[in-house]
């Protein structure tokens, strides 16, 4: 039986605390899940984070956890904890739309590896959350199913493309969410919703069952309210997977241990000179500077580092990602799954394909498919795609040189706080600037975290921490210590300052 009176407190628990309460028998997984479902019922009409709520499946998974605990079985560190899953990862028993009309109503017949691992860890998947169509966007306004709203200010964007993931966690609908990050799509929503978000090292988390946007950049990762919660989720989903040939067969970095160390004395921190100045909100720069000053006070050695090619990361990304997307999205051809339009018995396959893609794709997807087709076409290939790939090499070299001097790099996560809904939808170039600071790590493959830095006019902004490939634990080492110090100074976690919905 569910005691609804406990719900308001339960949804505010961290994932670690929820799991500990379940393990101790103070809370059942069913109670935790019902509390999350009640919260969704209460606030999601306003926030619109969820595209699909699988109440029956979630409660069944929670009951299984409670039964296994009652039988004395050992449970994982996140057993019974509810989670919101970005709708770009397949899960049996739920639709997978990728925020697109072209996949409306489609049910994948298999679980993504991330989902298999969540289920194996006894995490309770509540349902699928909103996103920019095929993860292309920075505001979640490119979803075919309507925008998600920022729980801090419902007139503003929650970031994107993992805006549903971030909004669900910030609105206390779930303590954890899975997002994906191709150019900043975990870190930017985490920053503007006041959360911790991590893009793991490319290859660290399997892409099997992650519907591809830009295969050489896409990576799934955690969103949470604390560094420790993010680490627990990171550890649950990471690791080699033979089903993804780009998955790397190395040990998962010790992220949970690193999150708990809370000691950055002697850690060398590099402030990226190029990720500042023109285009950066003065409030963002002030919050960032204060966080860096806190690192110094904690005993970190802070220096300025130059990464001269980072200024070319954004243009290189907007050639590489659309090029890969134009190729990847060719699979949406109306033949084997998804929407089919105009199959009247007369029209041929190519015409049906063209009509279906016209009807099924939204404006941003069309822009990027056409842009990618252009960049890859003969005569332009060398000047655009080929040159962008060379710039990618130079950005990796900038990182390599920087990490000879320092252990981690830091920058603001985004140049500005959350902007008003609708303010950039018709200006793609302006929208793309949201990813200015986050793209270099995608191009070079290294891990990066966004951590709440402070408020600018009542809106959260983040500090980004970047590490070399396969040194994901450094993010959690620095993030854990900084979070503790910033929370102590403030007297409470940043999210406690969010207005009630």
């Amino acid at each position, binding site marked *: 039986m569910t005691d609804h009176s406990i719900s308001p407190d339960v949804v505010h628990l961290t994932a670690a605390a929820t799991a500990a309460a379940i393990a101790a028998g103070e809370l059942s997984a069913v109670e935790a899940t019902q509390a999350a479902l009640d919260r969704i019922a209460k606030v999601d009409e306003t926030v619109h984070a969820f595209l699909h709520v699988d109440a029956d499946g979630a409660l069944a998974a929670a009951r299984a956890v409670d039964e296994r605990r009652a039988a004395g079985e050992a449970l994982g560190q996140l057993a019974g904890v509810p989670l919101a899953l970005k709708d770009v990862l397949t899960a049996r028993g739920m639709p997978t739309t990728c925020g697109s009309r072209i996949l409306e109503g489609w*049910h994948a*017949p298999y679980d993504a590896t991330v989902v298999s691992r969540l289920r194996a860890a006894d995490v309770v998947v509540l349902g699928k959350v909103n996103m920019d169509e095929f993860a292309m966007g920075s505001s979640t306004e490119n979803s075919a199913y309507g925008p998600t709203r920022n729980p801090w200010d419902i007139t503003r964007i929650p970031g994107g493309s993992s805006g549903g993931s971030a909004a669900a966690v910030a609105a206390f609908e779930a303590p954890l969410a899975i997002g994906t990050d191709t150019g900043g799509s975990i870190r930017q929503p985490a920053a503007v919703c006041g959360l911790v978000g991590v893009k793991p090292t490319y290859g660290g988390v399997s892409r099997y069952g992650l519907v591809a946007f830009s295969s050489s950049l896409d990576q799934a990762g955690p969103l949470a309210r604390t560094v420790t919660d993010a680490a627990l989720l990171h550890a649950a989903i990471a690791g080699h997977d033979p089903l993804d040939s*780009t998955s790397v067969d190395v040990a998962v970095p010790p992220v949970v241990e690193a999150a708990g160390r809370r000691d950055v004395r002697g850690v060398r921190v590099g402030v990226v000179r190029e990720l500042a100045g023109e285009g950066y909100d003065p409030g963002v720069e002030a919050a960032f500077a204060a966080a860096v000053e806190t690192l110094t006070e904690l005993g970190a050695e802070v220096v300025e580092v130059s990464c001269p*090619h980072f200024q070319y990361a954004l243009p290189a990304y907007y050639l590489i990602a659309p090029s890969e997307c134009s190729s990847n999205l060719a699979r949406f051809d109306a033949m084997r799954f998804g929407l089919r339009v105009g199959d009247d018995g007369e029209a041929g396959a190519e015409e049906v394909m063209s009509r279906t*893609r016209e009807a099924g794709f939204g404006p941003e997807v069309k822009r990027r498919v056409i*842009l990618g087709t252009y960049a890859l076409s003969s005569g332009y290939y060398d000047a655009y795609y080929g040159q962008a790939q*060379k710039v990618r090499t130079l950005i990796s070299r900038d990182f390599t040189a920087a990490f000879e001097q320092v252990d981690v790099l830091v920058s603001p996560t985004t140049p500005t706080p959350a902007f008003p809904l609708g303010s950039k939808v018709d200006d793609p170039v302006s929208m793309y600037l949201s990813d200015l600071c986050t793209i270099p790590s995608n191009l070079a493959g290294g891990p990066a975290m966004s951590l709440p830095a402070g408020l600018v006019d009542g809106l959260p902004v983040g500090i980004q921490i970047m590490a070399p490939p396969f040194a994901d634990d450094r993010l959690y080492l620095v993030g854990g210590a900084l979070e503790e110090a910033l929370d102590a100074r403030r007297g409470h976690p940043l999210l406690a300052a969010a207005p009630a919905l």
Partner: protein
Amino acid sequence: MGITRDEVAHLARLSRMSVTDDELDALAPQLEAILSAVARVAEVAAADIPPTSHAVPLTNVFRPDIARPSLPAAEALAGAPAAEDGRFRVPRILDPDE
């Protein structure tokens, strides 16, 4: 480095994506603006720089060639726009006039 409305229409055809006149009107100037923003990659002198296609270089990734159960046909067809006799039913692929 301009991109014309006709070029956009041609690229849309190459992409097997019908576009309306209204879409072409919107897309051409937007793509023009995006291209002028991304053309900055040409400023970098990179003639002797090798391209990176993948963040973490991996070659010849193998896994054991072991037979595994495949998706049952009914499940594979469950999401199909049209199926017939246990197969995907697709529109004709050849033009009857050719």
